[in-house]
């Protein structure tokens, strides 16, 4: 089958095995971000609009960390990353179009 390598992009390489230590470090990072977001929210209540943006930003960072390390996006085919980006773009576009409409009522 000389054609086999045409499929190379679709077939994964050897499976990467993440170490227990990596997983633990990921958890520590996530917990740290949680502490930051709670602290900003509870003690920075007078910076209202800022805290919305900050909270969402921190949440997004956490989500990226979970997806990248825990969900193995870092080691999987790039296709998955692109698809996740696609879904994110789609959702952001939905919210953006809807909010533009409501902001201008």
């Amino acid at each position, binding site marked *: *089958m000389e054609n086999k390598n045409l499929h190379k992009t*679709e*077939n*994964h390489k050897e*499976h990467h*095995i*993440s*170490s*227990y230590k990596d*997983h*633990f470090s*990921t*958890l520590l990072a*996530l*917990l740290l971000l*949680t502490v930051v*977001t*709670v602290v900003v*929210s*509870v003690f920075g*209540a007078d910076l*209202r609009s800022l*805290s*919305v943006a900050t*909270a*969402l930003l*921190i*949440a997004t960072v*956490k*989500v990226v960390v*979970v*997806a990248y*390390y*825990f*969900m193995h996006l870092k080691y*999987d*085919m790039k296709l*998955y990353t692109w*698809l996740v980006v696609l*879904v994110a773009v*789609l*959702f952001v576009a*939905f*919210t953006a179009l*809807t*909010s533009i409409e*409501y*902001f201008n009522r």
Partner: protein
Amino acid sequence: MEHASGFVLPNSGHNRDAEASKMGMWLFLFTELLLFGGLFIVYMVYRMINHEAFLLSSFELDVTMGTINTVVLLVSSMTIAMSITAIQKGNIKLSVNLLYATLAAAIIFMVIKYFEWSSKIHHGLFPGMDYYESLPKGEGLFFYLYFFMTGLHALHIIIGAVIIGVVIYRTKKGLVTSEKYTLTENAGLYWHLVDLIWIYLFPLFYLIH
């Protein structure tokens, strides 16, 4: 699959294909994300229209309980990720124990959720109750969305717990091995999704004052 006339189609839908299963799982997760996405759009629009009311109502929620639940879910995400590492290294016993830990986290989460919900219901904040009906414009919507979204999320926790139970059962029966661990991987992906959604729900309901 072999054919009587003596040739083999190289790509068969009946072959075991771990990558295909994983791809299917990811695609399914996308639908889940957009399912919640619809609710987040509703939340966003109503928050925009009823800004003050949403701020006031969010003070009613218990930040401590929310934070504990966040930590519980994050830890459980790690344990299930480690469980995959364990099965890949062929350590079946450790893998099963880590799955049990994840299951325990799911139960703790649900218990805390139960106390949270019952205290809200005790105050008459559930849609249809007297106090809820007397709430000013906008605040009712906040609690309606709170119950709808955390309720749907809790439903996903329960489904995830059942799936993890299945993985434990099949791993113990020897059907999941260091060669064949797609099931654990997919259960992990699903569980992480439940975590991801909570990561957004938590600040949106508890923290944004």
